[in-house]
């Protein structure tokens, strides 16, 4: 088969994704942004995303060395959690939120200080591989408004939405896992006073209808 080897060509990019959460009428809503009208995933909706290849340098290197399936290495995790990188990311995310004529009313975006690292996931496109470093933060309700390219969706709208791409759902899975009651650091955050701006603690995130909770299959197997 004189078929070009597709696998080796794929470009790799690291994207830092921020899930903005607001709680309205006791229901969580998640902020999504519409992609441009052309190009990759044209017109699809996704979480706030900025290129962040500076996070992935060690990752990419290791990957090329082993030529095997990757699991996010420890060094990459450290990169994602480092204070310096957090600052760079906050600046980039804030830039997106302030862009355009429909800028948020709160240009400092102080809530970004509370962003918390959720984990990493990958998505492979035909000639492109994205590594997503995902973060989440709770935003006071009505701080960030709706525009023609920015919306707040419920969990159901997000997971069932035809215009929401698979990788967004993958990233959302990280949030679901990060908020399992079994995780000790999350349990802790539940006891901390809510709405206070202490970094990393006020997320109070629950996924699913308020009456019952859907655990991930990963909390049972593996």
């Amino acid at each position, binding site marked *: 088969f004189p*078929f070009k080897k*597709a696998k080796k060509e794929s470009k790799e990019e690291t994207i830092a994704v921020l899930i903005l959460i607001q709680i309205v009428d006791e229901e969580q809503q998640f902020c999504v942004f519409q992609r441009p009208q052309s190009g990759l995933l044209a017109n699809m909706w996704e979480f706030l995303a900025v290129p962040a290849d500076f996070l992935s340098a060690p990752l990419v290197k290791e990957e090329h060395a082993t030529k095997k399936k990757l699991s996010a290495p420890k060094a990459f995790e450290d990169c994602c959690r480092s204070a310096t990188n957090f600052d760079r990311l906050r600046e980039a995310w804030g830039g997106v939120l302030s862009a355009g004529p429909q800028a948020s009313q709160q240009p400092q975006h102080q809530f970004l200080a509370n962003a918390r690292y959720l984990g990493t996931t990958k998505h492979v496109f035909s000639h492109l591989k994205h590594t997503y470093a995902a973060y989440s933060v709770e935003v006071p309700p009505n701080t960030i408004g709706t525009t023609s390219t920015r919306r707040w969706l419920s969990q159901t709208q997000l997971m069932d939405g035809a215009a929401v791409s698979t990788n967004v*759902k993958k990233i959302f899975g990280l949030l679901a*896992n990060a908020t399992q009651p079994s995780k000790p650091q999350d349990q802790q955050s539940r006891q901390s006073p*809510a709405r206070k701006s202490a970094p990393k603690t006020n997320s109070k995130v629950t996924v699913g209808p308020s009456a*019952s909770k*859907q*655990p991930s299959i990963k909390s*049972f197997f593996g």
Partner: protein
Amino acid sequence: MFEARLKQGGTLKKVLEAIKDLVSESNWDCSSTGISLQAMDNSHVSLVSLMLRSDAFEPYRCDRNVTLGINMASMSKIVKCANNDDVITLRATDTPDSVTFVFESPSQDRVSEYEMKLMNIDSEYLGIPDQEHEAVVKMPSGEFQRICRDLSQIGESVVVSVAKDGVKFSASGELGKGNVVLKPTVNADKESEQVVIDLQESVTLTFALRYLNFFTKATSLSESVTISMSKDVPLVVEYKIGDIGYLRYFLAPKIEEDEAEDTK
């Protein structure tokens, strides 16, 4: 060299239909024992596990273990190009960049060949413990599909209660509430129409109908389905694929939030 020839090509079409809406991409692991696949859905809530044993294929050749990273939508598109009575052959090299599907009509007058590019998929492999379940219900697969679909009209979750004398599916929501009770059949004409309850202990568990409805896309694979439940353990929904393998779905029960929430 990997090569596997499946006489009933329609089976592979049904398998794809049963998986593709739940899982967008997955690794198909080919070894001397057969072809297997394990994948979580995108939200990591449920798990699907497929096994097609090597003796299902004639011939079956697997010189080295091979992992085929497959985009399910692409494979579904290609497999739809086979007729139900076509013979389907899968073929790949030992270090494949692509997999080839060959479809032959029974009369051999029509031969189609599709070559699909593979992906590098970074998937976690979960260890599934082999477990005895407290309650095992076997019922017609169409009945299970119907119940899940009907109760989706009423609510988002179904409570499944298994007792000696029957299994009860209940849901409630804005418009009211509903339940369906199936009693074990004493004598049914066909084995496939039987409802059989094998019970060590009564169980009552709650599941998200959204996922069960994904699972019942496998209904065409088998006339009956087996549902295995134990307290605090994922549900197993199993469809046998003739005597050549199985398709199993796992779903964790929903947890009632009776733990104290911090008061507002």
